[in-house]
């Protein structure tokens, strides 16, 4: 018995259509999720817990485990010349030369701040992080760990370091007025599968982006993608768009894991963030500037 051609095409099309219909739903910019998350009461993927950068360091953007600004400090590197600095992947993930695409004036400013990091002579030379100030939405994720909590209609980040926090509403209501510049910016988020996409505007950009004086302006527009690869691994990228400072947009990216700063494998269900009241404990040495008598080379003990 021969199969009629029309029947064949009919059945084949039906099978093909059926297969397409059963394929997992795709939304723009999202790959098929590799894991099936538990859900919060309002249906978000449940990613609550303590998260910390996988390759931890505050050195410089191109090598977080290096020295500040990826240059040797004036007195020499800790451990001496024979010790090799550790290396971690660059956090500048999509520019041709691996550097922040500064306009020339901005590069000059960044270099000026870096030059004065070790011997600061004016207030502006002190990194805001050293003064316990909020670091801005992106850089704050690189310091110590972050406690991610989820409530109906919200994702909330509470950072132990300097007790900064970020509230990310998910209902899509508008940002606050553009003249309100905030230390951690103003966030609005939504889920695309297991990726949290956050639009961050209203940045006052006073927190700088590194100890080496990297910076954005208060006109910067940041779009973050928190791609939760599974329950314990997160790939993070923040797209910086600021035509007043950069020649093109660029992405600040790194990976995080479920863990806490300085420890490994704590029980996520019983660990607690404890108070870190940073500003109250600062002492003069934390904000002192160099004067003539205290500059490097002085004999004073």
């Amino acid at each position, binding site marked *: 018995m021969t199969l009629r051609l029309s029947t064949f095409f009919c059945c084949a099309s039906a099978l093909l259509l059926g297969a397409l219909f059963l394929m997992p739903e795709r939304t723009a910019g999202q790959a098929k999720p590799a894991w099936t998350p538990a859900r919060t009461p309002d249906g978000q993927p449940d990613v609550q817990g303590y998260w910390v950068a996988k390759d931890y360091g505050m050195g410089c953007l191109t090598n977080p485990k290096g020295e500040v600004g990826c240059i040797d400090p*004036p007195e020499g590197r*800790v*451990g001496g010349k024979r010790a090799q600095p550790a290396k971690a992947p660059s956090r500048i993930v999509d520019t041709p030369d691996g550097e922040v695409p500064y306009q020339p004036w901005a590069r000059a400013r960044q270099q000026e701040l870096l030059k004065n990091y070790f011997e600061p002579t004016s207030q502006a030379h002190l990194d805001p992080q*050293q003064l316990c100030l909020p670091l801005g939405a992106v850089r704050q994720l690189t310091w110590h760990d972050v406690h991610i909590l989820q409530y109906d209609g919200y994702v909330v980040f509470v950072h132990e370091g300097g007790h900064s926090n970020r509230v990310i509403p998910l209902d899509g209501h508008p940002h606050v007025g553009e003249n309100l510049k905030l230390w951690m910016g103003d966030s609005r988020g939504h889920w695309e599968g297991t990726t949290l996409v956050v639009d961050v505007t209203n940045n006052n950009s006073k927190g700088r982006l590194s100890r080496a004086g990297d910076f954005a302006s208060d006109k910067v527009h940041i779009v973050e993608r928190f791609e939760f690869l599974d329950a314990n691994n997160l790939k993070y990228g923040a797209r910086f768009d600021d035509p007043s400072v950069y020649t093109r947009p660029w992405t600040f990216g790194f990976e995080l894991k479920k863990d806490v700063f300085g420890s490994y494998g704590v029980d996520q269900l019983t660990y607690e963030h404890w108070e870190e009241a940073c500003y109250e404990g*600062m002492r003069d040495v*934390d904000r*002192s500037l160099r004067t003539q008598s*205290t500059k*490097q080379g002085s004999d004073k003990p």
Partner: protein
Amino acid sequence: MKTLLIAFVASAGLILVTAPAYAHHAFAAEYDVNKPIVLTGKLTKVEWVNPHGWVYVTATDKEGKTVNWAIEFGSPNAMLRKGLRKTDFPAGLELVVKGYLAKDGSATINGTSVKLPDGRNLLVGGSGTGAPDPE
């Protein structure tokens, strides 16, 4: 010299944070790696504060002058989580302090170890800034 330095760190059993820049500031911004110091003195108080705690020690220098030294250590939360409390550090304890001098000329040290007479190191969390142990 440099090889000995590394071996000393390994054998002393001190618990130091390994990466250079964990603290809220980089070591080199405030302290001088070329100015190591060792001193013996008496504990006057411990300040359990963030961003880093302080141990205050009075010591007498060669000229007989009493100096009140402030020694910076890491976040007190590391010590709290290990079960240590301020009552474990009564005033009057005799201590041997090792660290690096502050660049601003004050009597301030970035502490790498603060040892009791029995050899126990109070700084269980390390100074947090990655300063090495001096020879």
